[in-house]
């Protein structure tokens, strides 16, 4: 297997859907890398993210947030156990510029390991022509030593992942 990123699969949402799950993820790579672009039919800029379909309170997250209409950054996220990652920044909310889609990426090192708790980062941006842009940099901890074999995105605030949204999953081999 060649080093570097290998496209595992990509999906383009044809009809709006509440959630997208990547299942049966191969365990043969070193890391996972996800890039995508999504829009929410509801006023929420986050698609909830879960690993292995688990709704246990083992998700921890913190972010640096910045808005193009207000200088500066601030920390968001409670830092307490949650039942999913909130994922702000991985979707453009319905109230933003029409037909605008987010730009996000998620990196998950050592996803198939069974000794360590999983750490990940998400970088996401959403543009709103009228007032500016939002930018989030998340650090996530999934307090489980289970290998990650599925990843689910669920549009927040009872929305749908809009048609035209694209999510691509890559496997990265380091050696």
């Amino acid at each position, binding site marked *: 297997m060649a080093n570097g990123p290998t496209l595992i699969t990509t999906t383009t949402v044809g009809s709006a859907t509440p959630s997208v799950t990547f299942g049966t993820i191969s365990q043969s790579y070193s890391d996972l890398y996800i890039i995508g672009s999504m829009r929410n039919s509801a006023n929420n800029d986050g698609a909830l993210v879960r690993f292995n379909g688990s*709704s246990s309170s083992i998700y921890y997250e913190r972010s640096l947030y910045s808005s193009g209409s207000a200088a*500066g950054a601030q920390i968001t996220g409670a830092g307490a156990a949650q039942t999913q990652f*909130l994922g702000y920044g991985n979707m453009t909310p319905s109230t933003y510029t029409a037909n605008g889609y987010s730009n996000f990426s998620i990196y998950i090192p050592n996803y198939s390991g069974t000794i360590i708790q999983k750490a990940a980062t998400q970088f996401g941006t959403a543009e709103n022509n009228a007032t500016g842009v939002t930018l989030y940099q998340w650090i996530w901890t999934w307090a489980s030593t289970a290998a990650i074999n599925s990843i689910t995105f669920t549009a927040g605030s009872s929305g749908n992942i809009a048609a035209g949204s694209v999510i691509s999953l890559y496997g990265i081999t380091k050696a």
Partner: protein
Amino acid sequence: MSETLTKTLVDCSTGQTTIVALTDEEIAQHEVDMIASVEARAARETAYEALAALKESAKTKLIAGQPLTAEEAATIVI
């Protein structure tokens, strides 16, 4: 007739995509998740607005040469 909640499944081993209806258990979990999602976002917005108000107050007081509260000072001193 209520809308049937579905989920989109992508099988990474085959690349095949299927759309299936949520089970009763999944629907219940989805409802819990969406309530939590709305509450979390509302809390985030409240926090942002409170911080913006503190910054604005600090700015106004600085310009006027008035003392800042500790909370106001914390918004401009890193």
